[in-house]
């Protein structure tokens, strides 16, 4: 089994997990431990000490880590950058593979026991959200829509018109826009407990495993932040540096329409 360290700082919650992954896809992954702490705008100062403590609690050392998983957002611009930069630094320093997973997948993963539609609504600031639909089935979740940025009222209206089944809502965007979605969806909407709105160390590990992250090459250069609202600095930098093959034109993952 491989020792895998997962981290996500895209939301106000700093989520760190430590687990074991089978070398092939025959076995089942195991979560050894996790630490999830609210560190609004302070992930930079907390992530590394939290990782060190979790490793110690699990009787492991940083040098034992065989792979890193990073939450790629979407979420807070600064938070996503801190998470990706920290993960890349660790992966490079340790000489181990780095795998990426969408922060929204890790939120949906927390509701994996539920059957039916799951809507994750991340806070995109600026009166916008990151909405994504998933389907819970047989203890796992399947993603139905890609990461994007949208207006809460427009998304709610769109879902009210297109979804004809019960929808479980989660995500930190609900802190501001819960009423927008519950009013539009009416009886169909059920709101998950706020404690279920953020990714956790365990859900990151599980979502990364479910989405087949481990099947990728683990090339740290290929793990990109998901901004959805395109970041010009990142774009210019990627173009300037000459982007690695197979990466989006912008060097930044985002919706097709927003790529130059």
């Amino acid at each position, binding site marked *: 089994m491989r020792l895998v360290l997962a981290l996500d700082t895209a939301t106000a919650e700093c989520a760190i997990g430590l687990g074991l992954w089978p070398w092939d896809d025959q076995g089942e992954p195991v979560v050894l431990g996790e630490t999830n702490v609210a560190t*609004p*705008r302070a992930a930079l100062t907390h992530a590394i000490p939290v990782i060190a403590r979790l490793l110690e609690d699990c009787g492991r050392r940083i040098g034992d880590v065989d792979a890193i998983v990073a939450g790629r957002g979407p979420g*807070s*611009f*600064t*938070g996503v950058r801190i998470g990706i930069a920290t993960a890349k630094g660790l992966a490079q320093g340790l000489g181990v593979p780095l795998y990426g997973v969408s922060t929204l997948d890790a939120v949906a993963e927390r509701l994996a026991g539920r059957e039916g539609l799951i809507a994750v609504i991340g806070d995109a*600031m*600026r*009166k916008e959200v990151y909405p994504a639909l998933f389907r819970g089935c047989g203890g796992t979740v399947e993603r139905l829509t890609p990461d994007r940025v949208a207006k809460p009222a427009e998304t709610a209206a769109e879902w009210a018109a297109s979804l004809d089944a019960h929808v479980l809502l989660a995500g930190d965007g609900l802190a501001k826009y819960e009423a927008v979605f519950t009013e539009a969806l009416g009886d169909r909407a059920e709101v998950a407990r706020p404690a279920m709105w953020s990714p956790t160390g365990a859900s990151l590990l599980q979502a990364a495993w479910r989405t087949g992250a481990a099947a990728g090459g683990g090339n740290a250069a290929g793990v990109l932040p998901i*901004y959805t*609202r*395109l*970041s*010009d*600095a*990142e774009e210019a930098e990627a173009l300037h540096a000459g982007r690695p093959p197979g990466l989006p034109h912008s060097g930044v993952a985002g919706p097709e329409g927003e790529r130059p």
Partner: protein
Amino acid sequence: MRRSHDAPIAVITRSKAETAEVGHLLGALAEPNDIVALSGDLGAGKTCFAQGIARGLGILEPVPSPTFNLLLVHPAELTLYHFDLYRLQKAADLEDIDLYGTVESGGVSVIEWADRFPGDMPEDRLDVIIDVTGPDERRITLVPRGARAEQLAAAFADGAGALV
């Protein structure tokens, strides 16, 4: 210092100290996530006004101009996020410096050169325009944009009455 009667809320100051005093009054009234968008020519006193806001927030450390840093953070009970957009080239740069995430993070944000990107400033904000009306005289005009900014401006107007 006197209240002028023509503009919605305007105050005339006759020295840097008075400009800072007006900022001090505004800072003392600020609440979490308040945004003050400052505009005015070079040397009008934007940073001086921001320094007053910092004092009003109980911040005692020096508050230098953030022109080169783009953002300087002064931690306090209400943390001051002091932006300067002078060096930014285009509105997309505002995302790169995480302006929108920062202004919603529970502190008080003061944005110098906000008029460089008028269409891209956060919606609920208090615009503060500093006009140079004489060698030492400034007219400071408050234009609220949004519900919370209206409240803040009204509280300021009440307080400024006492300064006349």
